[in-house]
Structures are given as structure tokens and as C-alpha cells.
């Protein structure tokens, strides 16, 4: 059974600790993860901006990278959503690529989905005695329907106090190039999101997408607010290590 990691470009270059956490966590269950070296980015930044040729050039590396995989796991609801929701549209005029895209879609999972739905794991045996709030990113929730999986996983972490994030369904304002192109609107959105995070008095903000977390975390830092941002995978992995230290 070949389980491959779709690193995602942001996790590869900016947050390697997230990809490492996934690999380490899966290793505990005996799952050897394969990391194809030819993968780059799902193509979303170009696709969403309307540059579909450019998006195809990037997405093709993903199609090719995972041809031989049985399962593909990604630390992002947004990049997984791109594969699930838009690859067929993107490659509709190329029958070969289209067939590849459909096969990829069937075997690609966002990390928490993979853990809960595929492996059937709800309790990783972690311990994390902190106040935590969870931001459900838009694409994971709306394109992939991820609602229960992260909560389920977090609810089994010993010592973790999960505080509901008010207006959690509101977008944080990241939106890829939107944050740069429409920076004032995006800024207003992230400001509001950060206000809501601060209301929870959580020490840690967790999520499934480093783009959104980089946005919210970056704004919190800008305001001098010491809230730590973590991917759910990181939290679980750190929590497991902690539990094993005792």
C-alpha cells in the first residue's frame, strides 16, 4: 500500500515542520510515507487568478507525482479541494490528463480526513494541556465537507481545552493573491478574525491550512498578540511526543 505525501508548496518552503509532523505521526502507525520529488504546487494561485495554462503547468507535476500512489495525503483542505473540485475543469480538454485527474481525486485526502475516514483513528494518544481554538478554513469545510474530523481528533487529546471560535465560519481574508491584490479588504477581514480569536483567550490557534494560519498568525503577531499557530497535525504530533515522555 503506497501512501504518498503531497507536501504542498507552502508547507515545503515555509512550514516544513507541518509535513514532518504528518510523516512522523503516520510512522507511529507503521505507515511508511513516500514523498515524490517531482511534485510542486497544486496550481491554485494561478488557477484562481484566471491563469489556467500556468495552473496546468504546475498541476501536471502533481498528476504525475502520484500516479503510482494508493493514497495521497495533504496538510491542506484548500490544496486538496483544488484537486477534488477544480482539476476536472482544468483538464477537461485533455483526455489523458483528465483521466489522471479523476484517479488522483479518488485517492487524495486532507490529513484529518485520512486519519479519521481512511485509517479509522480518532485518538492518537496525545496530551496537550493548553487552551486551544480551531478555525475551520473555508475550502476544507465547503469544498470537502470537513466538519467533524478535526474536532473528533482534538476532543481526544488529553488536557486540551477546546474553546469555540465565535463566527468561526467567516473567512479569515487570506484567499491567496486576494490578500495582496485587495489588501485593504483582506486586512479588514483578518482583523475581525483575530478579534474573535482573542475573545477565546486561547494560547493556540489550530487549523488545517497553513495559508490561513499564516494570515491570522501574521496579523496577531503584527498586533503583538502572542497566540501560537499550529496545524492540527503538529499539535497531535507534539502531543503524542509529550504523552510518551511520561
Amino acid at each position, binding site marked *: *500500500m503506497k501512501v504518498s505525501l503531497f507536501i504542498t*508548496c507552502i*508547507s*515545503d*518552503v*515555509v512550514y516544513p*515542520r507541518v509535513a*514532518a509532523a504528518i*510523516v512522523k505521526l503516520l*510512522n507511529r*502507525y*507503521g*505507515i*511508511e510515507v513516500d*514523498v515524490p*520529488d517531482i*511534485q*510542486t504546487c497544486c*496550481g491554485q494561485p494561478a488557477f484562481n*487568478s*484566471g*491563469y*489556467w*495554462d500556468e495552473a496546468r*503547468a*504546475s498541476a501536471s*507535476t502533481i498528476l504525475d507525482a502520484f500516479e503510482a500512489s*494508493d*493514497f495521497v495525503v495533504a496538510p491542506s483542505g484548500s490544496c486538496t479541494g483544488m484537486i477534488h473540485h477544480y482539476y476536472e475543469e482544468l483538464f477537461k480538454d485533455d*483526455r489523458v490528463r483528465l483521466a489522471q485527474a479523476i484517479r488522483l481525486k*479518488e*485517492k487524495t485526502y486532507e490529513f484529518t480526513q485520512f486519519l479519521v475516514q*481512511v*485509517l*479509522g483513528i480518532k485518538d492518537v494518544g496525545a496530551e496537550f494541556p493548553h487552551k486551544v481554538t480551531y478555525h475551520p478554513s*473555508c*475550502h476544507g469545510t*465547503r469544498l470537502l465537507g470537513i466538519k467533524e474530523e478535526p474536532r473528533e481528533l482534538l476532543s481526544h487529546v488529553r488536557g486540551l481545552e477546546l474553546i469555540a471560535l465565535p463566527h468561526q*465560519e*467567516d*473567512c479569515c*481574508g*487570506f*484567499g491567496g493573491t*486576494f*490578500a*495582496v*491584490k*485587495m*489588501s*485593504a*479588504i*483582506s*486586512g*479588514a*477581514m483578518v*482583523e475581525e478574525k483575530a478579534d474573535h480569536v482573542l475573545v477565546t483567550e486561547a494560547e493556540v490557534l489550530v487549523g488545517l491550512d497553513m495559508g490561513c494560519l499564516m494570515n491570522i498568525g*501574521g496579523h496577531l*503577531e*503584527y498586533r503583538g498578540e502572542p497566540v501560537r499557530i499550529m496545524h492540527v497535525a503538529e499539535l497531535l504530533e507534539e502531543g503524542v511526543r509529550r504523552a510518551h515522555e511520561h
Partner: protein
Amino acid sequence: MLMSIRADHSTVQKTPDSVKGRAELALNNEFLRRAVKFTTERLKSGKLAAAEEHGNWEEWRERGRQIRLHTIAHLDYYLEQFVNNARAHGVHVHFASDAKEAVQLTMRIAKEKQAKSAVKSKSMVSEELHINHALEEEGIEAIETDLGEYIIQLAHETPSHIIIPAIHKNRHQIAELLSKEAGEDLPPDTAVLAGFVRKKLREKFLEADIGMTGCNFAIAETGSMVLFENEGNGRMVSTVPKTQITFMGMERIIPTLDDLEVMATLLPRSATGQRLTVYMSVLSGPRRAADADGPEEMHIIILDNGRSLQLGDTHFQELLNCIRCGACLNACPVYRHIGGHAYGGVYSGPIGAVLTPALNKNMAEWDDIASASSLCGACYEACPVKIPLHDMLVYLRHRKVEAGRGEQAEKMGMQGFRFIMSDAKRLKMIAKLGRWVQKPFVRDGKITTQIGPLKGWNAYRHLPSLPSETFREQWKQLEQELHASGRPTVHEEIRARMEKLVAARNQSDHMHAGDMARSSDLQAASRLKAAEGERRDER
């Protein structure tokens, strides 16, 4: 595009000609932001509660969608049926291909009737026509009778929301406007203000020669038009004046009265969270001998104005399914911060961001509004007929690029993206380069300088600096470490789950291939197989 909103009679305020500029204007208007946020939040939570209370919301949403999909797919048939039935009731039915024609038709009727004044109930289509302006130019007084529209008219503005035209104004601003009209100080008390307007409008209703209405739905099987409203002004407009003119978008059709039941459930709940609208009028022709009231003459002007352009367009036809409930505006996190005027068109929010360019043939001047979205999909989630507005926004951006209208800087950026992302070796190289370039800017693991492409981002945030190694660069060592640490064997149960999933997938793949072979597309299937074989050989 240059658009002007008159702040009052004497001063003319130019609004910026880009959505970005207009949005920044709105973002600096605390009154507007607070008012819009307050009301959209109320409407949004009302809608969520009403959907919850309904019990079968998702099922009804799907029913609504199916009705709209079916109707639009057979629009020519149902439109003809509607027109024939309406004419049989004695309605004068007119077609207008664009706003100009609709205005001409209206003016012809008004002149024929020697009209001096008209009362109007709420109609977004009439906003497309700028009909009030046209009437006033001919010396015909046109009075909006919906409270929100009346306020907007007094302020010489345009509606900033499909359902709540004056959503951007607070109680105090409204009291100020109405006090000016009343010639006395009115307190910012909703009951008092509404009472004043009601009294004022009563006179207007009695004087008016023409009543103008919009049309929420037109029922093909009965030839009736349906009005949804909460204030009762629509009833007055459609019963008191001798002549009635109804403006109707050509896509407003539903096939039967049964379908109206679904719409009467979906629309008010989505719009305001009401179970039912306060007044729902089903009007089938002018006054008959036995009727107590009603207009002597009834006209319906069916407007195209860019709508038929969407027919047959796989990406945009579903736009015609819209029932103008405004739920997507209330759910939109961008709309909440910038309000409706920032969108620059008659329709605002997510539906406006797509509808305006679509109705205007995707002209360059509307290119930028599709950018004012983070593509979060809240609009789609809220929409009672499931229009994928978030996808359409991407399609619009794509069309702009395809038409060669992409901005130069962005185009270059995307070429760079392609260069880097089409080959993992280049991505690695660029990451290295990035680490070197960032050096002078990094403080405590972050970059705060607001220069170049970082300007927009760092005006509101700090940027994390690139770590010393990419994941890829760590991977070899990590892999060895994990290997050396002695990996446990996979638990039987987990292995079984995985194998089952893969088996199920393979089976459904075979079935797909079987379907394809059975279908008339036999040749295509074999071509596909051959091509796949070739590709495998290449590797």
C-alpha cells in the same frame, strides 16, 4: 468606469473608478461598516435559524435548484406559455431587449395616459432601467413607496442591497433625512419614522396615475405575476392607480403554482429569516367587473438586458436561477466590510460581482469586481438555489485573462509561477535564493518591511521568514531516522480498511470503464486507453 452618486442637490461626489478604490472609501466609513455589519448579521442568523427550523432545508434547496434548472433549460417554452396565459387575462405584454427599449415602452404608456405621477414598489429590474430618472426628465413624478427605497430616493443614492436598499444607513442618518422632508425634527424611532412615511405616501398613492411594480415570480401555467413584500405598499401600488406597469426579468418564470410553494418557502426564509412573507400577491390580469379593486389596465414589460447571453453558457447559465433573496450578500465577509456601492453596479455582493459583468457582456470596465472575493464559498453555502458563485468568480477571472486583459504585473508574476512550479528543481533553487535574498530583512524569524510585493501583506501582518531548510531538503535525513527508529507493523484493522477502500475504488473504476465502453463513445474510450498506454510507456 466613472460613476457619480449625488450626495445632495448641490455637491457632486465622484466615486473612484475601481472596486479597490470604492472599497477603501467604504472601509474608511465607520458608520457604513457598522450599519452593514449589524443588519447582515441579523439577517444571516435569521436565515440560519429559519433553515434549521424548517427541518428539511437541504432537500428543499435541492428542489428549488431543480425547479430553476428545469425552467431555465426550457425558458422559451415557459415564457411563451406565460405570455399566452397573461394575454388571455387581458394583460398587455411587451418585450424589451435592453434597458433603453424598456424605458421607451414605459414612456409611451405614460404619455398615452397623460400621467403626472407614478408610485413604485420595490423592483431591482427598474434599477437596471434608471426609470425614475427617465420619468422625472419628462416631468412625471416617480415616488418609491418601499420604505428603504424611499429613503434612498430622498438621499439621491442607489440601493446598496437587493433586499434592504438602505442597509448602509443607520437610524440616526435616516431620521435626519426624513426630518428634512417633514420640516420638523423626527426622533430616530422606527415606529415614528415609518408612521411619517406612511402618512406622506398615502397622499401619493391616491394621486398617482401609474403604479409600477417588479415581479418576484411569473407563473407560466396561470399567467399570473407574484409579488412578495412586507409593507403592503405593493398591494397599494397594484390596486389604487388605474394603470399598472410591471417590470420583469425574462428569467423570473416558474412553471406552476405548486412550484410557487417551494419558492414561497425558500425566498423569505433566505432573505430575512421569515417563514412567510407578510404579503404575497398573485395577480392575474387587470380588474374584472366583479373585482373590488385593481388597475383598469395592466402592462408587463419583460426585460432581457443581457440575460439571454447566459443561456447555453455552461459556466454562467445558472446565474439565471437566482431568486434575488440577498442571502449571498448577508453571508459574504467582503460585503460585510465594504457594503454594496463598492461593487459599482445595480446588483452588489457576490451575485452582483458575477451578474454585473455577465449582463454587461464581460466588458473590460467590469473586470475588476470579480477580484473582490476571497473565494470562500459562503455565498454558495447560503444560496437557496445553490448557485456556485465562488466558481463563477474564478471563471470570470479566467475570461478576463483569456481576453488578454490581465494586468501586466500579475501576468509577469504568473509567468514566474509557471517557470518555478513546472519543475521541482526550480522550486528548490528558488527556495534557496529566497533564503539568501531575505537575509537583510529578517528580524526574529519574521519580515516586517513594507516594500515591493510585500507592501499589501505587511501593512496588516508580519511575514514568517523562510526556514533554513525546505521539507524536501530535510526529507532524506528524516526518512533515515524514521527507518532506523524501527517502524511498527501496520495494525491489521487499519490495513484492512485501506485495502477495502482501494478495492472499492478499483471496482468503481472498472464500472466507469464499462459504462464508457457501453456508451456510444466507444471510440473515445479506446483512444483514451491507447493514450494512457503511451503515457505509461513514456515513463
